[in-house]
């Protein structure tokens, strides 16, 4: 087999440029996923049957429908109801809102390990719900759920490749295109994998760092 580094070297700049889109969508998606995920989780376990039902429905929808379809809906169907999002916005929103469903479930699982006594202590002191979540519950849930959350964020980076269906030339797409011209899929895909790997390894390192810091308590 003649593995050609030249091909990689030659196309790397274009792949890196495409990786910027991957990064943009990923980071935007992560922000939405984490923030929206916390609220979803709170709604999901709230006492109010209405809120919790809605959240359950949301989670079931966004986990149940393939992201590809969600993206197509965001980009190709929303215009029919008068909401014409630019492609990048649609991609970030779709990726983030879908990932939030998973994040919410991860947090819900983690919250169950926090002994009830801790919430009771906060209630007895009169700590407001928002502070209870922000200061007591979420930090600990994140601490427990961090490896799973890192998993989810890494999956999010990878799934950002679906943004190509709304015309964004992100890393996977551009790699495929280059392959279509060079007929060297192995080389190009290995290079693409390396770029994804780089992004994800940074994420993963950040996750471990946070985990080590949070685990002190």
């Amino acid at each position: 087999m003649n593995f050609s580094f030249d091909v990689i070297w030659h196309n790397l700049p274009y792949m890196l440029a495409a990786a910027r889109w991957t990064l943009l969508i990923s980071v935007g998606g992560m922000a939405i996923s984490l923030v929206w995920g916390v609220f979803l989780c709170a709604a999901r376990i709230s006492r109010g049957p209405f809120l919790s039902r809605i959240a359950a429905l949301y989670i079931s929808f966004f986990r149940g429908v393939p992201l590809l379809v969600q993206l197509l809906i965001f980009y190709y169907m929303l215009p029919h109801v008068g909401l014409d999002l630019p492609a990048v916005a649609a991609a970030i929103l779709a990726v983030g809102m879908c990932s939030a469903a998973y994040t919410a479930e991860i947090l819900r699982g983690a919250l169950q390990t926090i002994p009830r006594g801790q919430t009771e202590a906060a209630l007895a002191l009169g700590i407001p719900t928002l502070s209870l979540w922000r200061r007591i519950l979420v930090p600990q849930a994140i601490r427990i759920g961090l490896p799973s959350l890192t998993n989810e964020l890494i999956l999010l980076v990878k799934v950002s490749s679906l943004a190509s269906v709304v015309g964004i030339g992100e890393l996977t797409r551009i790699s495929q295109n280059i392959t279509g011209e060079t007929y060297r899929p192995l080389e190009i895909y290995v290079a693409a994998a390396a770029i994804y790997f780089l992004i994800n390894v940074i994420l993963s390192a950040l996750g471990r760092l946070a985990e080590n810091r949070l685990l002190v308590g």
Partner: protein
Amino acid sequence: MGDITTEQPIIEIRNLSKHFDDFEALRDITLDVHRSEVLCLIGPSGSGKSTLLRCINFLEAYDGGEVRLEGELIGWKSAGAPPRKPLSGEALRRQRQHIGMVFQQFNLWPHLTALENVAEALIHVKGLPKAEAMTKARAALAKVNLSDKEANFPANLSGGQQQRVAIARAIAMEPSVMLFDEPTSALDPELVGEVLGVMKQMAAEGMTMVVVTHEMGFAAHVADRVAFLEGGRLVTCAPPADIFGREPDDPRVNAFLKTYRERNVV
């Protein structure tokens, strides 16, 4: 009862009952706590002491009867027969701000240091600026002799130290009523003395206290009245002298105190 003051009791408990599934943890408890009074709850393990405390600040939604704080019904929207509607979170929070609690299992927040555990509510409930809250929290920790451990996480504290953080966390909030669930169980006699001192001082400053304890010496020393619970019922409630006096009327109380007396009259 009612021999301490004629004004309205700060806590009124009327026909309180509480079930866990089909286990009756509290039945038909009627009890008043007066302003600035120290009421000790004693009784065998499993008699419902913690449950009673937890009903007072509605950590357990009691199912029968009423608990009132300064005349205001705790937890439920209306008195009367079930089904009743619970108060909104916000209303309940307002009520609970007047009631401090030290838990039997401490319930410290493991991801916050001792100091942060104490300061947390000062900042987020009292709304104190951070610096001021820290000063206050340090003062509270000093009261329970724990200044040198303020930076430790709960997992790195001894049992007694954890208990003292829990006490500091509650007293720093200066509530009008304090509920203590065995606040000295993990403390050595010397510290018990110190905590006792702190409690006496709080009592002198007008705080009302309900204290669950297994230390009869402690109860005898600090209580204005002692209530004896058994099997979820209030057996008796009287000044300590009547309870700890040589032979109290109630044979059950008598039996309960027997071993204690034997052991402590060395």
